């Protein structure tokens, strides 16, 4: 005999699993701090690459000027400036990524909590069905 309550709960759970659930379950494998740190690290690598690319483009763009005045350039000051810009960019992106991924994690955690409630409801329905006359427990 079909338990309508259980089918409804299972349907809702299946719909969730096929949509946001896919990502949420992956996110939920991490603790909040691990998830934020892991993504922060990925962001750091990406920003470093982007910064190197920007520096490369700038270098090519100003290559003629650089070749002409290579002896007059204060390399230490230039290095300091590049380092400062890099640190500022990284700092900005760390703040952005912490806020962004914390928000993402908390949203996913809320949905997962509700999903777990659905699973509990399914379990309860199965338990009741098993204990009913003619259910699995009674047959056993």
């Amino acid at each position: 005999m079909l338990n309508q309550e259980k089918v409804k709960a299972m349907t809702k759970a299946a719909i969730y699993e096929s949509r946001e659930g896919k990502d949420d379950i992956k996110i939920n494998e991490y603790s909040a701090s691990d998830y934020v740190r892991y993504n922060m690290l990925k962001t750091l690598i990406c920003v470093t690459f982007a910064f190197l690319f920007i520096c490369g483009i700038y270098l090519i763009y100003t290559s003629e000027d650089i070749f002409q005045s290579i002896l007059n350039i204060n390399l230490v000051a230039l290095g300091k400036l590049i380092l400062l810009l890099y640190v500022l960019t990284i700092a900005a992106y760390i703040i952005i990524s912490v806020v962004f991924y914390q928000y993402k994690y908390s949203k996913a955690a809320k949905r997962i909590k509700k999903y777990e409630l659905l699973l509990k409801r399914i379990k309860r329905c199965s338990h009741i069905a098993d204990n009913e006359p003619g259910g699995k427990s009674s047959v056993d």
Partner: protein
Amino acid sequence: MQIMNQEGNQVLTSLFVYKGKVTDLYKKYETYINIFLKFVLAFLFFNYITSTIGAYDILTKLPIRFILSVICAFVSPAVFVLIAVIVILLHLFKMSMLLALLALVIFSIYYFLYLKFTPKQGVLMLAIPVFAPFHLHYAVPLLAGLKYTPFTIIPVGMSFVMTKLIVYIKDAVPTITSNTDIEGALTAYTDVINRLLADKEVQLYVIIFALIIMLTYVVSRLPVDYSWYLGIAVGVLTSMIGLLVGAKSLGVDVSSFGVILGSIISGIVISAFQFFVCTIDYKRKEFVQFEDDDYYYYVRAIPKINVSAPELKVRRITSEPKEEAERMETNNRSRTRPSPIKSESDFEIDDMDTGYDEIDLDDLE
């Protein structure tokens, strides 16, 4: 006067009935409509790329463009953007390997710094060059302001950079004689970047479109009635005034007729979209399969169609103090105020709990 009011009410009623029909139709065929719209966007984009920088013969052929568009229609927006970028890079690679590298580096910077966080918004970057020939690209910042966040300024701005970049790269190709001509490549790089930085048209469009997004976003979220439509109106006005004044002050050649007509039509299109489509909540027809110890389930979940309650009209029969009557009227108004629309991002299981109570049990096995 009363007859005019009655006529107005009739028009409104018929408009809402029509809206209901369109909403139902969209809900019924949502999956197919979305696939079709993505296909059209992809096909128009590949046409645009072919007409602008079509150097790779195989990719310019109609069947290939058609197949690519079909693929883009079925994949996620992030993959759609990736395919589009790869097609651009292949065309540029065919023209000049060294210049394709410049485009690759610029797209990589864009990905690492922005697109990585919100890959879906990359579609906005593709929409502008597609709609620009029809003067409907003014609709993109309006939509971005209404549906997304002000961060969409970045993909919208990038769209103008991309459209100009590929044109300038194409123009710079003759500068490079061979794939090992480093000196020629350096000159070409400098030339492309110089032209891009000095392009007043790009500057004008990026600034004005950023303004449109910001104003539409802020105004459409004000706690006033019809804030969405107010946001669209402000966006349209910003577009018209900003582009015309900006073009004059920067000395950019912009078609005044195109700007005015395009902005107005874009505003109308987005208003219609908001009226008919955006009010549809996230629930849609779902087909899911699962199993427990006893059965395999094949379930079709049909969302309940919410019928709004008729507006309550309180007619005062006995004489009441004026303040009491005003208080009742205020309460009545607050009761009938429509609830804010949920976007797909607001999806929560709580909502699902009330949305899928009618399960098509015919499909159960």
